[in-house]
């Protein structure tokens, strides 16, 4: 709940730049920073990815474990998304349990994945009510230069797409691992895009300096088919109704650009 102190000189400078269609690092208002995606970086994880958005660096690891389903969804696997802001990523991060920012990040990424139904959780059930696959998605922020949501969402879906899940069979009510790995039941590739509001201007992919002076931000996630599947307004400012609509339109276009950086969906096993 630490309150942010808005540096007013910096804000004035960025507002003036934005009014002229410019940004502090030379980008146009609707330009993303260079995006790099690398997968398979952690061999011990069933899936992993590092995403760089400019200097922002986020690592995501995917682990599959057998566990119990939730009581109200006995026929479904479990998707669990967690985020840690480890203190090496920023002088402002401190060791300890996730704060409200890390929790919000994890939950926004979670909703983008969950509501797109990208993982077919029913196919991750092994013994109904007893044993299902749990997909642990751990978001690890390594260097923070703004727009952690988009970088994390991109790393999460990249790691999932690059992951393999152990092949399990149920024999006489017991689960047997064959030792083989198969493609997990992924059927969508959601992408999140965050739009910042700076005075009267909307900007794409805000960097850390910009985030410090934003009025507010709006994140929209889209399915492969172009459906809106999650939204989140953040920061203590307000949008006009028109700005909301316009931000979503921009986000939709950008989400399609970003999705091109992802590998295609593979035909499912079984």
């Amino acid at each position, binding site marked *: *709940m*630490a*309150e942010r*102190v808005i540096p007013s000189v910096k804000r004035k400078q960025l507002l003036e730049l934005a009014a002229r269609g410019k940004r502090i690092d030379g980008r146009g208002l609707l330009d993303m920073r260079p995006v790099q995606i690398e997968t398979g970086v952690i061999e011990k994880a069933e899936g992993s990815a590092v995403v760089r958005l400019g200097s922002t660096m986020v690592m995501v690891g995917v682990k599959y474990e057998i566990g119990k389903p939730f009581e109200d969804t006995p026929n479904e696997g479990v998707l669990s998304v967690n985020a840690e802001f480890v203190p090496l990523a920023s002088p402002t991060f401190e060791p300890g349990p*996730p704060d*409200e*920012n890390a*929790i*919000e990040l*994890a*939950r926004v990424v979670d*909703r983008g994945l969950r*509501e*797109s139904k990208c993982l077919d959780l029913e196919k991750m059930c092994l013994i109904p009510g007893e044993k299902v696959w749990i997909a642990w998605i751990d978001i690890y922020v390594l260097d923070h230069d703004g727009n952690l949501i988009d970088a994390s969402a991109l790393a999460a879906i990249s790691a999932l797409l690059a992951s393999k899940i152990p092949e399990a069979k149920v024999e006489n009510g017991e689960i047997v691992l064959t030792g083989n790995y198969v493609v997990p039941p992924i059927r969508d590739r959601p992408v999140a895009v965050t739009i910042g509001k700076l005075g009267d201007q909307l900007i794409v992919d805000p960097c850390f300096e910009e985030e410090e002076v934003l009025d*507010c931000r*709006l994140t*929209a996630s889209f*399915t492969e088919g*172009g*459906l*809106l*599947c*999650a*939204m*989140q*307004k*953040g*920061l*203590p*400012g*307000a*949008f*006009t*109704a028109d*700005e*909301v*609509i316009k931000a*979503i*339109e921009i986000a*939709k276009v950008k989400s399609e650009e970003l999705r091109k950086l992802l590998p295609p969906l593979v035909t499912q096993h079984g």
Partner: protein
Amino acid sequence: MLSSAPTKLISDDGRRADGRRLDQLREIKMEVSTLKNADGSACVAYGKTRVMVAVYGPRELHPKHLALPDRAILRCRYHMAPFSVEVRKSPAPSRREIELSKVIREALEPAVFTELYPRTSIDVFIEVLQADGSTRCASITAASLALADAGVAMRDLVAAVAVGKVEGKLVLDVMDVEDKYGEADLPVAMMPSKKAVTLIQMDGQLTFEEFKEAFNLAVKGCNQIYDFQKEALRRHFAPKIEELEGGMSSG
């Protein structure tokens, strides 16, 4: 008191599980100044969803080094009573409650003249006493009433309502069963007279056209909630103003 999955959420004649029309709010109740100790308080019901909000402040902040020289710190805690939901909830704050505390604070902050109260805190404590969907919206609505009751200067009240997509149709003021078994949930908060959107979240799947329609329905709903809020404040303050005027005229 477990409920089972309903067979149909919208009847053939366009009525919802509780008999409402698609664009109809539940019974809305608002009471201002419910509590004695708090500087401001309000109790709001959207149907069975019931929240109680207390505001303490502007008051001195502890520890002091957290204070800001140019404005008040707005703090907000959204919390659910253990008995507010079907399966008893542990009192420890869940990740969901922590996220909602943050987005509710960010939905209220644009309305508060924090710059008038430097070095203080304004604490908004929200207790969900019974949860039947749209608790974050009822919380925002109640919190802005409690802030007004505490005499905190505001640009506008904040009114909030959720629009859902249920069996392909858009519905206003989502209740629990619609949230659980519906296709999408879109909570929106606004400063109605400023036409400024201070909260927007979305779960589920909507086309862009559906979104625009849902958003417009939410704006309409916020305006209705706003009318209830103004009425509640009038009910609460009018007698006092009359008293005051009475006192003056008799003087």
